[in-house]
């Protein structure tokens, strides 16, 4: 146990959590439990991002995904639940077939990934030598359209040419998010139409209370 790399040990823990809970999402039939497993899987994935040195992406994963998207999904679960713990089971044959296809797919992907020599190359000594964290400013400046990371690295700027900033994609994605949220609010609104539930309850309320004042008087 002397040669254990602590970085690799933490990676193994987070990877096992992420993969295990993702498979639990795929194999569970209870939608509430699936949502809970998805929360744990996404949180473990943000741990992987922290280990890879992408702290900002990991924090955004926790805030947007786990804090926002999952809360949205859980609201969807609650708004569409007929009774408690709805479980719609698919047939056993479909499940077995899906497991076989999934095993084939993951075998194909992992073996093809493992054969790329550049991805199997000896990692740099950055982890071993306790390289300090990368500052956040290059990321923020790249979103503002300014690439300072390319200018600093000696080989990057010359070999790859000037790197593009991300100001236009940032603006496009922000407008896209605004349009999407307006559209989602429009889609999810409750319609009050003739004969709808709201009118019916109002009519029932009026029926129940139509004899109210006279009943008190007599």
């Amino acid at each position, binding site marked *: 146990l002397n040669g254990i790399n602590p970085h690799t040990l933490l990676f193994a823990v987070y*990877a096992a959590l992420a993969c295990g809970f993702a498979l639990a999402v795929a194999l569970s039939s209870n939608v509430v439990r699936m949502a809970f497993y998805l929360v744990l899987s996404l949180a473990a994935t943000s741990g992987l991002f922290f280990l890879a040195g992408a702290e900002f*992406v990991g924090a955004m994963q926790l805030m947007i995904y786990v804090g926002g*998207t999952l809360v949205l999904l859980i609201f*969807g679960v609650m708004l569409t639940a007929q009774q408690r713990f709805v479980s719609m089971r698919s047939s056993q044959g479909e499940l077995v077939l899906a497991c076989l296809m*999934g095993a084939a797919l993951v075998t194909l992907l992992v073996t093809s*990934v493992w054969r790329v020599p550049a991805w199997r190359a000896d*990692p740099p000594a950055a982890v071993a030598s306790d390289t300090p964290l990368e500052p956040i400013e290059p990321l923020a400046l790249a979103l503002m359209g300014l690439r300072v990371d390319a200018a600093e*690295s000696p080989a990057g700027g010359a070999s790859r040419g000037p790197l593009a900033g991300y100001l236009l994609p940032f603006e496009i994605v922000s407008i896209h998010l605004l349009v999407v949220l307006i*559209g989602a609010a429009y889609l999810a609104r409750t319609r009050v139409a003739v004969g709808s539930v709201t009118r019916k309850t109002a009519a029932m309320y009026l029926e129940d209370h139509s004899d109210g004042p006279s009943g008190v008087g007599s």
Partner: protein
Amino acid sequence: MMAHHGPFAAPILASLLSEPAGVAHYMAVGAVLFTAGVMSMAVKRNLLGVLMGVELVLNGAIVNFVAIGSPYLRGDDASVGLDGQLMALFAIVLAAAEAAVALGIALNYYHTVGSVDVDQATQLRG
């Protein structure tokens, strides 16, 4: 090569834990997340389960982006640099937008059909 073989799993596990984690390890995790998402999309009868499968697939893609762009896993000259992290950020935001629209569609579907079972969506005779 090895003097004593012992239990089969022990040397493999030890070599996995002693060599540093690289891009290929992250890619393998991304592949497992992707496969779990595809299985969820294919098998689930609950519409929200299908949505969770989509989230898992997107998450696998984000893991790959972060791994490719990480300066810790590849050398500074081999890494694609900040582009990987920026693409991961855009993918996270687009996943949030996708979840919002899909939830709106799911609520409309529930109001129309009275259930979230995707097998009951037969109005278009698809």
